[in-house]
């Protein structure tokens, strides 16, 4: 039974196939039949086949004989780097959930204790500073006693007196100058 002739789409499909792998015997037979029936397709086929031949001539790129060993060494270095960086987190991740919560809780309690301890120490230091100030004031008052409290009752008025400048009595000055002129 005569094989059906290829149409153009099938011919292009065959060209694609030939570009990727050698044609089977059946495919070659179909191609020969198509080229015999369509001579104008011959140069198209020859160009495609020629290009495939040229691309297949390209040799393998040079690769060092110890390439795999180098890759494995690079991978070992990478593993070592990652294990050092994540050692603590990896250890934490390996714990069972109840132990993970217990560890996290303990760390929180320690942090809270540390904070309160810091607050207590700060307050002690402040109290010590205030005691020093009180001692200093007490010592100073023995040398120069502070005024009685009653004297400080009208403190505001006394304070203002000290700050205001006396105003001239102009009527008195006018009278005195008239007397002087007589």
């Amino acid at each position: 039974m005569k094989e059906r002739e290829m149409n153009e789409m099938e011919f292009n499909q065959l060209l694609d196939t030939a570009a990727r792998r050698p044609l089977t015997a059946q495919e070659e037979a179909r191609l020969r039949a198509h080229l015999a029936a369509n001579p104008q397709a011959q140069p198209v086929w020859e160009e495609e086949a020629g290009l495939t031949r040229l691309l297949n001539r390209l040799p393998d790129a040079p690769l060092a004989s110890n390439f795999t060993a180098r890759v494995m060494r690079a991978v070992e270095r990478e593993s070592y780097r990652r294990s050092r960086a994540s050692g603590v987190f990896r250890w934490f991740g390996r714990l069972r959930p109840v132990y993970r919560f217990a560890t996290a809780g303990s760390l929180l309690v320690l942090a809270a204790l540390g904070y309160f301890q810091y607050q207590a120490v700060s307050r002690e230091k402040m109290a010590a500073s205030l005691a020093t100030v009180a001692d200093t004031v007490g010592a100073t008052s023995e040398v120069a006693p502070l005024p009685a409290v009653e004297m400080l009752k009208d403190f505001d008025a006394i304070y203002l007196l000290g700050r205001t400048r006396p105003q001239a009595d102009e009527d008195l000055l006018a009278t005195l100058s008239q007397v002087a002129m007589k």
Partner: protein
Amino acid sequence: MAANPDPDAALMLRVKRGDRGAFEDLVNKYKQPVMNIICRTIGDATEAEDLCQNVFVQVFKSADRYRVSAKFSTWLYTITRNLCLNEIRRRSRHPADSLDVTHPDNDAQPLRQFEDTKNPSVPETLLREELERKIQQALAELPDNQRIAILLCRQEDVSYEEISRVLGCSLSATKSLIHRGRETLKQRLKPYLRTGAWKGTEK
């Protein structure tokens, strides 16, 4: 669930569980295809080897996040493509060294040394090397995505669907990229298409 489970995906799942032997097997299987793609994409064999190493280190580092949603090779070539494009972008920001720069340890020696073509060993070898250079040059002049698509096409076990996933575009766009790339290569390599040889050898 795939009808034919991917053996490389199974290896990668073992790597995820800490199996270094499985990782070594994957490196041995894919080091050459990955190196071929990188070398032809960035055009520098020395840098390509370092980049190839980085690809596999990245695969190892990403093992925890690996999911069997596609073939392992698709994932691997996606990482390869991304690192290649990063390198190309880095080079565009930092131009290449001058050919006149001397080696840091020896002022009399240039930083980059090239083969002395004035003293050829065997003519056929030279011609073959010249042709390979022409092909490499034509590939290098393609846009990045076209070049990577054509290089991935050379891997028989990578389907068009996988190539489209690696490139991050549709299947039709991928086929279009490959078609346009091949048309451009045919134009640039026209003198060599018929005979597959350099013109100098034609009688």
